[in-house]
């Protein structure tokens, strides 16, 4: 019985954690400009993320060490600096974007400019981190994040032509605007496969005290949770394809995205859209700050746990305190949240090789995983994701210039 509640909670957490500023922005941009044709990228991103999360969760459950621990221990300090710096920089950008997402939602609700909201949002987040436990941060925001299900309702209400949606799930090439198409494809992948997600997930496995017994929970959580979460991102894309694309509205500003739900669902859709943007971005803000604090603490061997009082892990607590306030600065001085989001998503996509490729070695290390090493199917999938990550690194800069 306890197992089942753990599975249910885990799945809900992944659903609630999937949709955030990046996936809301890039899915609706994709739908507005290319209809259903980018849906396959969401499928690819979701499956990749599910696999990466299952693997990092398995590493943690079997070895009692986080992915960051193992990156440092197995590859040494010199190599470790590379993922450390890359993940730190891109996650910080994404963090600033999430704070931007919360702020813009509050602006849409109140009319008070988003820049004024950044610092109060950061302070509220900090109070939750300072006082709250891991369970509160993870489960609390995830449960509230279920409000994102409104995207599914909105998409269904618009009566999409399902065969056309199905067709969009298969890769296709656009006849024109290729640079923009691939730019959005890279952004969508960056929004789906964020390193902070699996760093947070693998640290969470230790915070929740996972053991070998949890391998089943891990598989279902990573698999089902992400498939449902990815389904909501597809719903956002469908809604944008049916509300914005026919009117040839391109998403230049976050403000335009609310129409995607206001149009099919009226005032309720509008309000729930604002709630979704606000809550999911706030949840992601907390997750990313913690992921960054975990990254440094685990990399350098400091004491860490969100369940300890701050005096027991002073460096860990200082890191999240400083970072959440620092990340509010770009938004507080008026940086455009949508531009920031798009740049962050492309940078994230470009950063993937340094966290994906080392997994190939770790997932086949019998010293760490014993009989739970990857099977051939997982290895083939991981090699494909690794190749994809290298392609993203190579393509990111030219596409930012041509299609951004």
């Amino acid at each position, binding site marked *: 019985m306890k197992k089942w509640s753990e599975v249910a909670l885990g799945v809900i957490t992944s659903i609630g954690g999937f949709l955030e500023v990046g996936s809301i922005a890039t899915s609706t941009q994709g739908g507005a400009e290319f209809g259903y044709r980018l849906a396959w990228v969401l499928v690819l991103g979701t499956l990749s993320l599910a696999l990466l999360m299952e693997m990092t969760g398995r590493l943690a459950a079997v070895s009692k060490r986080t992915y960051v621990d193992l990156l440092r221990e197995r590859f*040494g*300090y010199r190599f470790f600096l590379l993922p450390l710096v890359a993940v730190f920089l891109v996650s910080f950008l994404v963090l600033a974007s999430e704070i931007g997402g919360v702020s813009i939602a509050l602006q849409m609700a109140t009319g008070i400019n988003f820049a004024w909201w950044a610092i109060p949002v950061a302070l509220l987040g900090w109070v939750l981190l300072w*006082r709250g436990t891991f369970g509160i941060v993870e489960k609390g925001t995830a449960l509230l994040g279920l409000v994102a299900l409104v995207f599914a309702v909105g998409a269904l209400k618009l009566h999409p032509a399902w065969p056309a949606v199905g067709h969009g799930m298969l890769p296709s090439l656009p006849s024109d605007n290729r640079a923009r198409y691939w730019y959005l494809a890279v952004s969508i992948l960056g929004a789906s496969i964020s390193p902070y997600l699996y760093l947070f997930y693998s640290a969470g496995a230790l915070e929740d005290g996972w053991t070998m017994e949890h391998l089943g929970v891990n598989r279902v959580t990573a698999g089902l949770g992400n498939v449902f979460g990815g389904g909501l991102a597809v719903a956002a894309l469908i809604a944008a394809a049916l509300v914005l694309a026919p009117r040839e509205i391109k998403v230049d500003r976050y403000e335009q995205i609310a129409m995607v739900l206001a149009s099919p669902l009226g005032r309720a859709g509008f309000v729930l859209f604002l709630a979704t943007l606000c809550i999911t971005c706030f949840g992601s803000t907390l997750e990313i700050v913690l992921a960054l604090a975990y990254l440094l603490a685990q990399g350098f061997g400091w004491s860490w746990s969100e369940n300890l009082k701050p005096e027991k892990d002073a460096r860990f607590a200082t890191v999240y305190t400083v970072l959440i306030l620092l990340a509010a600065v770009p938004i507080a001085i008026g940086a455009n949240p949508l531009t920031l989001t798009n740049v962050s998503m492309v940078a994230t996509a470009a950063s993937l090789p340094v966290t994906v490729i080392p997994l190939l070695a770790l997932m086949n290390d019998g010293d760490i995983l014993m009989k739970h090493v990857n099977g051939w199917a997982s290895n083939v999938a991981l090699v494909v994701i690794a190749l994809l990550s290298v392609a993203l690194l190579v393509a990111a800069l030219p596409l930012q210039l041509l299609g951004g």
Partner: protein
Amino acid sequence: MGAVHLAHDVLDAQLVDQAQEKIGRVDVLLLELEEGHPPRVATIVIGGSARAERVGGWFVALRRGLRVLLGRREEHVSRIQFDKVRRIGDTIELDVDEKSLESEHLERWLKEHFVCRIPGARGDQK
């Protein structure tokens, strides 16, 4: 356990003190060379300056530059004799107390000057 790989199992491993508190990682392992004796593993070093040397000269210079900018001169490095090792497993347990370690200076400083001045910081578990 029979033999232990120094590079694989000891270098970069998580260190804990007598009370199982995390106290950094094995940043550097030193061999002791003494006239008339064979070399032996003698010292575990914990500290940023020791770590930096493993990366290369450019990194040491970069780090030094940053520290001058921040006005931080003192290096806080711990050198611990290998015979303080109590257990080698998932983590390495040392027969030391974190309060006496130079490398935990920053943790103590932040705790005293920053963290504990904010309400709600004190205690064990949340």
